[in-house]
C-alpha cells in the first residue's frame, strides 16, 4: 500500500499518460478505421486495393516492429515530432486495421434490403453508406470495437517500454528507489484494470442505448 501512497503523483502521471495515449490513439484508429472500411467497400478499385493492403500489412505486423519503424525510422526522414505523437501514430494506425475489419463485418450484417431500398430512392454511394448502412452497422459493431479499444489500451504498454510516460514505465524509477517490486507491479496492474474496465463500462452503456435489440 505504501508504494502507492508514497508515489501517488508518479502513478497518477503514469495513469494519465496511459489514458492520454489510449484516447488519442483511439480517435485516430476510429477515423482511419472507418475511412479504410469505406475504401474497402467503395466502387473504386484502387481504393479497395489500398484499403485491403493497409489492413493486411498492419494486421500482420508485430506492434513492436511498428513502434520500432515509426519511432526510430520516421525521424530518418527528417520528421521530428514529440515522442508521444509517434506512439499515438503507431498505436492508432495499428488499431485502425482491426477497427476497419470490425466495421466491414458490421456493414455486412445490415440487411441487403436496406442498401437496395436506399438505392431505389436514388441515393448515391456516399449517401447510402453514410446515412443508411453505417448508422445501422454502428449498432452491431459496438461490442467488437469496444474489445478492440480495450486491446489498444493494453497495447499502449509497449509505448512505455519505448520511453513514453505511461503506467508500465512507473516501475523503473520505483525499483531504483528500492520499493517492493511486486507491490509496484500490483498497482500498475490495478491501473490498467481501471482503464480497461472503464472502456468496457462505456461500451456497455453505448450498447444498451444504441445496440441491436435482439
Amino acid at each position, binding site marked *: 500500500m505504501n508504494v502507492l501512497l508514497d508515489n501517488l503523483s508518479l502513478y497518477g502521471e503514469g495513469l494519465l499518460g496511459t489514458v492520454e495515449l489510449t484516447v488519442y490513439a483511439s480517435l485516430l484508429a476510429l477515423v482511419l478505421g472507418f475511412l479504410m472500411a469505406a475504401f*474497402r*467497400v467503395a*466502387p*473504386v478499385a*484502387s*481504393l479497395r486495393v489500398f484499403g485491403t493492403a493497409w489492413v*493486411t500489412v498492419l*494486421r*500482420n*505486423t*508485430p*506492434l*513492436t*516492429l511498428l513502434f*520500432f*519503424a515509426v519511432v*526510430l*525510422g520516421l525521424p*530518418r*526522414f*527528417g520528421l521530428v515530432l514529440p515522442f508521444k505523437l509517434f506512439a499515438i501514430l503507431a498505436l492508432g494506425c495499428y488499431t485502425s486495421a*482491426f477497427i476497419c*475489419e*470490425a466495421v*466491414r*463485418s458490421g*456493414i*455486412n450484417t*445490415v440487411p441487403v434490403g*436496406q*442498401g*437496395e431500398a436506399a*438505392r431505389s430512392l436514388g441515393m*448515391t*454511394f456516399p449517401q*447510402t*453508406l453514410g446515412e443508411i*448502412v453505417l448508422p445501422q452497422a454502428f449498432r452491431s459493431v459496438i*461490442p*467488437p*470495437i*469496444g*474489445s*478492440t479499444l480495450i486491446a489498444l*489500451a*493494453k*497495447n499502449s*504498454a*509497449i509505448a*512505455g517500454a519505448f520511453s513514453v510516460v505511461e503506467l*508500465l514505465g512507473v*516501475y523503473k524509477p520505483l525499483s531504483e528507489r528500492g520499493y517492493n*517490486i*511486486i507491490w*509496484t*507491479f500490483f498497482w*500498475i*496492474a490495478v491501473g*490498467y*484494470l481501471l482503464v480497461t474496465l472503464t472502456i468496457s463500462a462505456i461500451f456497455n452503456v453505448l450498447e444498451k442505448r444504441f445496440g441491436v435489440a435482439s
Partner: protein
Amino acid sequence: MITTTALYDVPGPRTRARHRLYAIGATVAILALAGWVLYLLFTTGQFTAAKWSPFLYKGIQELLLNGLGNTLKAFVLAAVLSLALGAVLAVGRLSDHRALRWVCTLVVEFFRAMPLLVMIFFIYVALQVAPLPALVAGLTLYNGSVLAEVFRSGVNAVDRGQREAAYALGMRKTQVMTHVLVPQAVRAMLPAIISQLVVALKDTSLGFLITYEEFLHAGKLIASNLDYDLPFIPVVMVISPVYIGMCMLLSWLANWVARRQQRNPKVEAVAVAAAEPGNLMTGGPQPPVR
C-alpha cells in the same frame, strides 16, 4: 454480397465514366503518395551503399538468421505450452466441480485482462527470470487463457444431441469429452486456434523489450551502429517483409483450414461461432462474410 450489389447500383454508362474518373483520381493520389515516400527515401539517402552493404556480409546475415531462429524458438515453445495450458484451463472451466470452475475462470479472466507486456516485465523484473523463459511464460499465460476460451466455446458449440446421444450409449463423462466433443470441437475451432497462434508469433517481438536476442533485436543492433550510418530504414525494409510474410503464411493457413472445414461433414454438428474480430486481434481469417 452486400458490398458489390446493395451499396451501389450496377453502374450505367455515365456512372461508369464517373467511377473511372474517381479511379484515376484515387490511383493518382495513391501513386503520388507512394512517389512521395520514394522521393523521401532517396533524398534522405536511405539507399546509399553505406547503409545497405552491411547486409552483404555473411556475419550480418547470420546475425539476422540467428535472431529469426530465436524468434521461432520462442514461438514454438510458447505455442506448444499455450495449447497445453489452454486445454487444461478449458477442462477446468468445463468441470462439474464448482471450486475448480471458479479458479479457472478467475485465472483465465485475469490473464486476458492484463497487458501481456506487463506480465512479461513482471516475470522478468520482479520474479527475476531470464529473458527467454520470461517471454515464453508471458506468452503462454496470455495465449493459453485466450485459447482456453476458444476451446470452451468450441466444446459448447457442439450440437447438444451429440452429447446426449453419447450419454445414452452409456459413455462416461470423460469418454464423452475425449471421444465425442473434443474431436469435433477442435476441428471446428482450428482456424481460431491458428489465428491465436499468429498473435503469439507477433508477440514474440516483445522479447526485444527485455533484451531477448530475437529477430528485431538483431535488426536494432545493426540499425543503431554508427559505422553503418544508422540504417534504421533499410533494417525495417529487410525485417518487416519477413515478419509480415510469416504471419500471413499462418493466417493463410487458418483461412485454408476454415474453407476446408466448411465442406467437411465431420464438423456439421458444430455451429461455428463467428470469430469476434475485436477479441482475436489477429492477422487471422477474415470475419465470415454472409
